[in-house]
Each structure stands twice: as C-alpha cells, then as structure tokens.
C-alpha cells in the first residue's frame, strides 16, 4: 500500500525504575495513510503521550518498530533521527510553546532553519502562505507574546506544517482553548489536512474532535481497543492491524 505513511508493528514501551518495570505500551499494531485525520483517544495514563513521543522520534520503543515513509526509525542514529524529525514530522502541543523572543513569522520559519535552505525567499513565501491559511497574515510581524491564545495555537499549527511534513502529531491541541477558539483551530487543522495531504494524528479527550476525524483509535492500558472509521464523514476507513 503506497500511501501508508506510518506503520507500527508490535510496538512496546516499558519504563524501568530500579527493579520495577512499568509497561506503558503493550504491543501496538497500526498503520496510517497520507491525508488521514485521526483522533487518538484514551483516558489519562493509557499511553497516548508515550505513543506520540515514539512516533515523533523523541522516544525509542522497547521493542517493535515504527516505520515512517518507508524508514524504520530504529535503524536511524541520533543525527539522522534529528534530521528525519525536522523533515517529516510536525508537532502541535497543548500549550503552544512558541518562542517568545521571535515574531509569528519567525516562529513559523524556525523548522526551516536547520535545513540551511538555499532559497530563504521560498521559505518565507511558504511561511507567509501558511500564516494566511490560519488567518494570521496581518499578525506575522507580531511577537509571539503579543498574540492571543488561539492565535498562538494557530501559529503553532503553521509552524508544524512549515517543512511540509508527512505527519503532524498533535497532543490535546485545543485543550487550553475556549470552545469557540478550539473549534476554529480544529477546523483549520481539518482544512489543512485536506488541502496539504498531511496526515494528522491528534491525541485528545475531546469527543468533538473525534466526531470531526476520519478515524478514531482508542487505546486503553497500552493496547488498541478500537480503531473505527467515522461513518458520518465517509472518509478513509480505519486499518486496524
């Protein structure tokens, strides 16, 4: 299947504290297609954040493997992982985590810096376009500290998409926003997913997000307990392993 961007095989993660081992993920098998908008749901402590960290190459799994756009992540050394993360993965966090000393435009441009692009004008054009798409073209020269919470989160979404990544991992992206702003942010992500073909995997407790998604994966106690296409949207169906 050529449009599979992410495939997880028998993925486990355990934390060892002294002689005590805590298994957080107990064998995850999943695959995701390009352009899918997937909600990852589960109660606190179910392993959602750990799964996102592993998919984001920030954590190594204890066993099993994750394959992103044909690359087995376990085969990459630290330098390659860092570069891979920069080129293929975007993050959106519950707290926007913008760099306060930089403008909205500079924050969006930031992921492009490590690439040492030979065409900074093209990067700037893309960053401006992304800010326009999230409705912040008129705020691009504002410092991050001068933006509202919703605006900051929209800048964070634009930043996550700067390098045209294959997947965007979002951890409770609307968790810190009021309902109206949260809905707007969700709508923007949904639109960008459709327009850019980037796969979004959103960890959330919010059923409203689940309802807007193509697919809902639920995990409990480190295991996938359900993986369903959202019938109402009629979009890509789930592909439980």
């Amino acid at each position, binding site marked *: 299947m050529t449009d599979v961007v992410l495939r997880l095989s028998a993925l486990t993660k355990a934390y060892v504290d002294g002689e005590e081992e805590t298994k957080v993920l107990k064998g995850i098998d999943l695959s995701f297609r390009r352009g899918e908008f997937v909600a990852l749901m589960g109660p606190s402590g179910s392993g959602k*954040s750990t799964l996102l960290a592993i998919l984001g190459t*920030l*954590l190594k799994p204890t066993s099993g493997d994750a394959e992103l756009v044909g690359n087995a992540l376990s085969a990459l050394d630290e330098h390659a992982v*860092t*570069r891979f*993360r920069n080129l293929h993965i975007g*993050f959106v966090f519950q707290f926007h*985590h913008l*760099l306060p000393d930089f403008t909205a435009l500079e924050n969006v441009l930031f992921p492009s810096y*490590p690439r040492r692009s030979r065409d900074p004008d093209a990067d700037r054009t893309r960053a401006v376009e992304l800010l326009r798409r999230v409705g912040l073209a008129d705020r691009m020269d504002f410092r991050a500290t001068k933006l509202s919470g919703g605006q900051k989160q929209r800048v964070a979404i634009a930043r996550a998409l700067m390098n045209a990544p294959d997947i965007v991992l979002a951890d409770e992206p609307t968790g810190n926003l009021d309902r109206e702003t949260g809905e707007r942010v969700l709508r923007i992500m949904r639109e960008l997913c459709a327009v850019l073909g980037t796969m979004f995997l959103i960890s959330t407790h919010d059923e409203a997000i689940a309802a807007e998604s193509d697919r809902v994966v639920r995990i409990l106690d480190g295991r996938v307990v359900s993986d369903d296409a959202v019938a109402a949207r009629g979009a890509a169906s789930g592909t439980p392993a």
Partner: protein
Amino acid sequence: MPFELRVALRYIRSGRLQTLLIFSGVAVGIVVFTFMAALINGLAVTLTNDVIGNIAHVRLQPAPRLPRQLGGDGSLRTLLAIQRGNEPRAVINGWREMVQSIERMSGVVSIAASVAGSGFIQRGEKILPVQVTGYEPGKESAMIDLAAGLVRGTSTLAPGEVLIGVTIAEQLGVTTGQRLRIRSERGRERALLIRGVFDVQNASANERLAFTDLATAQSLFDVVGAVTRIELKITDIFGAPALADRLAALTGLEGVDWIRENGRLQAALTAQGSTGDLVKFFAVLLIIIAVASQLLLSAMRRKAEIGIMRSMGISRASVTWIFVLQGFFVGLFGSLLGAALGYGFANFLAIVTLRPDGSRGLPVDPALGEYWLAVTIATVASTFAALLPARIASGVDPVEVIQQ
C-alpha cells in the same frame, strides 16, 4: 546568517535586564584588568625612567685586568703576582673612530666618550669622596640632563671648571665662582672653578657626582689622549643587553647595560608585574563566573524553548552553538564596553592626580592599559565559560518539556 547566530543575538538583545547585568559583569572585570595594567605598566615605566634617566643605557669599557700569576703554570711555585690597582689604568685608544662608527648605528640617541674615576674634593678641612667624570665640550648633558637640573650657573664647561651636585655644594658650603681642590685616585690634584651646581632629583647623584671637561679628567687620571669609557643612550631601552653584547663583540671592549647592572630593579618590576597579573587573573575569573552563571540561568529559564527546538529537529550541536555564540558576543561586547570605560577611568585618574609641575601623582598611564589583550582574553574566556551552560542546554530532553 546561520540561524544559531540569529538566535544567539536575539537572546542577547531580548534579555534586557539579564543582558545588562552580564555586560556589566564583564565590563567591570575589564575595567579592573585594564586599570591594573595601566597602573602596573605606568609604574614600571616611571621607575625605569627614574633609574635610567641618570645613567647610560649601554657602557663600553676596557675589560678588567684580572690578577695573574707570574710563573704559575701549576707545576712551579708562584713567585710573583700582579694585583689590581698597581698596574696602569686600562683605557680605550682610538675612541674617536669608535664613537663616530657607533653614532651612525640606528637607535642610538646620544653617545659620549668620557674619563671617569674616583677622587676626593677638599675644601678647607672638609674632604668628600666623589665620582669625577670628564666629557668632551658640549657632551656634559649627554647621559644626565644636567642642563635641566641646574640650580645655579651653567652646564657648559671649559678646561679647569667643574659642575658639582647640590649636596656636595651644601656640605662644603660653596657655590658657583668659587674654587675647590680635587685629588684623584692616582694622586693628581687640580684646583677647579665651580661653574654650576645641579640637582638631578637623585640623592646619590647629588651627593657623589662631579663633572669636568675631558682634558681635565684625563690629566687627573693619567690617561692623556685616551678615554676610559664610551656611554650610549638608545631608543629601545630593553634591547640594551643585546646591543651591549653586539658592541662588545665589535669593539673588543666590555659591554655593560643598565638592565644587568640593576638586577634589583628588574626583580622588583617582575614581582610587581606578577602581582598585577594575579589581579588580572581574578578579574578574568570574575568574568568567567559571571558569564557561566548568567548563561546557566538562561539555559534553565529557556528549557521549554530548547525542548521545543529539539522537537523541531534542531540538533544538539546547534543548541550548543547558540549558547557558545552568546558567550562569545557577551565577552566581545562586554569587554569592548569595559575597555572603553577602563580607558576613560585611567584618563580621569591621570588627569585629577596631575601635579602642578606636570608630573603624575598616580603613575597610571592610560596608553598602557593592554585594552586589546583584555578584549581578546575576555572574549575567549567568556566563550569557554559558555561551554557548561551550552552542554546543559543541549542535553535538555524534549519529552520532559512536552510532558510538562
């Protein structure tokens, strides 16, 4: 511009109070550094000038004749020995050609051939030991600026005239226009007319020195037609030992320089310099601690930002560079500010402590503040001081930050 540089400069610019504090810390350290350099170096120059003001920088003289044994080849018993003092005085013949030749060498400020020896000045019942030196006419002030230190009379000498130190004049109760009798170590005596009395701000010189014309000295010390030494003042005073050795090799005479003759001054200057270096070392240490602690605080405060950067694919090396560059620029800009303040402070002190006669009350020489050395050392030290914060920052775990 590399993004690490852009981020480093932005962090410095946006830090405001933190940046002000860290710049102040570096600047204060550099003010201390440059002030100590201006003071210690100024003091060294003052002391050196005081010492060399009244002496030749290089002196050429005949090699001393060592006592030798007659018939003492080791296998025979010594029958007779020639002792120092009983032999004819060693002199320099052909001195005019030597003087003309050396005078043409670069770096020679002035040169004078002279006859010098010990003697006594007698006036009534009073007898004082003196060092008598006879110069060619017009060369009286070639080694000691007698003209500038003249208290009474004139400094130009005709045959049969003498210049004496102010202490000698006071002790003998004489002044210009009077006569006194000089008896040399060779037993020759001359009655000389006091032409001038000098005060060269040196107690020993004022108490012991007397100057005559060359012909008078030659007759006093039995060296008619010859001289006993050739003296030089040169531009590179610290090159005196090398020049003395070179001239000794060229002329076959013994070369004596002011540095080797004033070993205690050199030791004092070295000790003084070491003390200054110690203070400068602590000033640099202060800079290192200030920069390291401020950047460490910055690394802690920006932990979340660093974690996010790492999650965006910024490498550990790039994070390290961001902090090392901050250290570099803090050191560079802070030390430039400190050097400017240090120069201003040294000038201020030099001006406010200036005496009415134009001499310095405090031996601070603003030109000797070693400003570029201070800037270089501070910049390098500050860059190295940033390594620890940089290492800590680059080790930030993005997962920890994200989960917070």
